[in-house]
């Protein structure tokens, strides 16, 4: 497909816009898109990258000294700002302060309320936490009249409470 602006180059950017409830799609080559102030690259990722970069700027000044570099994977805040990706589980503790703000903006909060992981050799605390989350799922299954799932969840809860393998 050729660019609808210059009619010469192959269109590389396909922009779907919604304005006044009308959807339109434009097909542009990179030079034309750039002229119109549209940057190339993955469009859907761009807002997140921008957003993380902005967040990074805002929080960098406060936390960069304390955050430093992750001792496990060597990631620093600048790398994170650039890629938007964390390097390992430890990063979540190292960049805790910076991440909380970001997670609140992205998800509206920081507390996970879903499935609780039961590790290979669970402690009593692991089991209890898992039971709490299974009970929540059980209540939901009953509400949805999904009795097959409810029965399976109930069995899992019983096994956990009896200290058996799950």
């Amino acid at each position, binding site marked *: 497909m050729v660019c609808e602006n210059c009619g010469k180059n192959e269109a590389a950017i*396909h922009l779907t816009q919604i304005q006044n409830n009308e959807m339109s799609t434009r097909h542009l080559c990179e030079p034309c898109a750039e002229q119109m102030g549209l940057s190339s690259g993955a469009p859907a990722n761009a807002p997140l990258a921008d957003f993380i970069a902005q967040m990074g700027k805002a929080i960098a000044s406060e936390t960069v000294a304390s955050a430093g570099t992750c001792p496990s994977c060597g990631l620093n805040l600048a790398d994170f700002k650039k890629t938007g990706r964390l390097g*390992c*589980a430890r990063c*979540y503790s190292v960049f805790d302060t910076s991440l909380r703000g970001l997670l609140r903006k992205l998800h509206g*909060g920081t*507390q*996970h309320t879903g499935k609780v992981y*039961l590790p290979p050799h669970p402690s009593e605390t692991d089991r209890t936490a898992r039971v709490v989350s299974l009970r929540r*799922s059980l209540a939901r299954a009953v509400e949805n009249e999904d009795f097959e799932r409810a029965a399976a969840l109930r069995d899992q809860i019983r096994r956990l409470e009896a200290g058996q393998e799950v």
Partner: protein
Amino acid sequence: MAHDFLGAMPDAGLAWLRADGPNSDIVLSTRIRLARNLQNFRFGTRADGDDRREVLRMTLETAGVADSLQGGRQLVVSELQQAERQLLLERHLVSRELVGSNGHATPTHTALLMAPGEALSVMVNEEDHLRLQNIVGGFRLRDAWRDVERLDDELGQRLPYAFHTEFGYLTSCPTNVGTGLRASVLMHLPGLVLTQEIGKVLQGISQVGLTFRGLYGEGSEVVGNFFQISNQTTLGKTEEDLIDHLQRIVQQVVQYETQARSVLLRDAPVVIEDKVWRAYGLLRHARSTSFEEVMNLLSGVRLGVGLKLIPDLSVYTLNRIMIFTQSAHLEQVAGSALQEGDADVQRAAYVRTVLSSERPGEGPPTGAGHA
């Protein structure tokens, strides 16, 4: 071919094409994926060869004893030929990140583990160590969740996942942390596009915490009136909350689409009937077609089948055309690489053959669907 997995599983990953799920005239498929990482190994973007090798080794070992994966396939990407990787990509079973794209180095120690049911699979060493996914036909979020959750339990019992009491399952990208769950539904919405209501609907979707994209994932163009609708956030709600919310909203969109289609049939029956049969005519007789053109024509025909204007043509056939007219699939049939022009000719020929084996009433139906 190194594996010839398609010889053994010609429909690998394509169970959803059968269109036997609910609402499958509007909802093509339902997909749920879970992002998981292992403790003590660096995540995708920072993992070195040793990390990746060990993650793959541990996962393959666990997969060998996980009930859900018994009798399935373990495809190590480095052992696959380029053509096979493209086939997996065109079936949406793997991401570019997993198989590498043309001209880029192939990522190391990546694999796809497939369950025998052809729907459930695990990508290993993608952006996250594990991406569990389930793709089923029609609108079946809860079914899709049930199977992927079971697989998650089976793997998690043996593999030490990275889990944080506050943040939940830890992921490479903070947009996936918490549940690590992305549920998405692939919808065909020509009624809303033709009645120009689609903008309003998509705007509404964004306002209720959902997001939409085209057929080929993030940043992709909307082709053939296909929209993928999925949850935007992953942290702070339970998996069931996220799924039920998506379920409710998609149900509404299905209703809007159904209404839009009846409005079209009521107010412009001739226009719609003409559009649908023209699309069918072109697909049935054209000699050279681009993939994009096929997708757009298929949209018209799919609408015709949904409105019962075109009788005796199955959604399964339309779904097959959608997958098997992509370049790598055409090349597989041809047995060699195809130049663009040749591919267009092959594509048109494939579509003609498939459609001629399933012949709907060759004349216009007599007022079918107008009531």
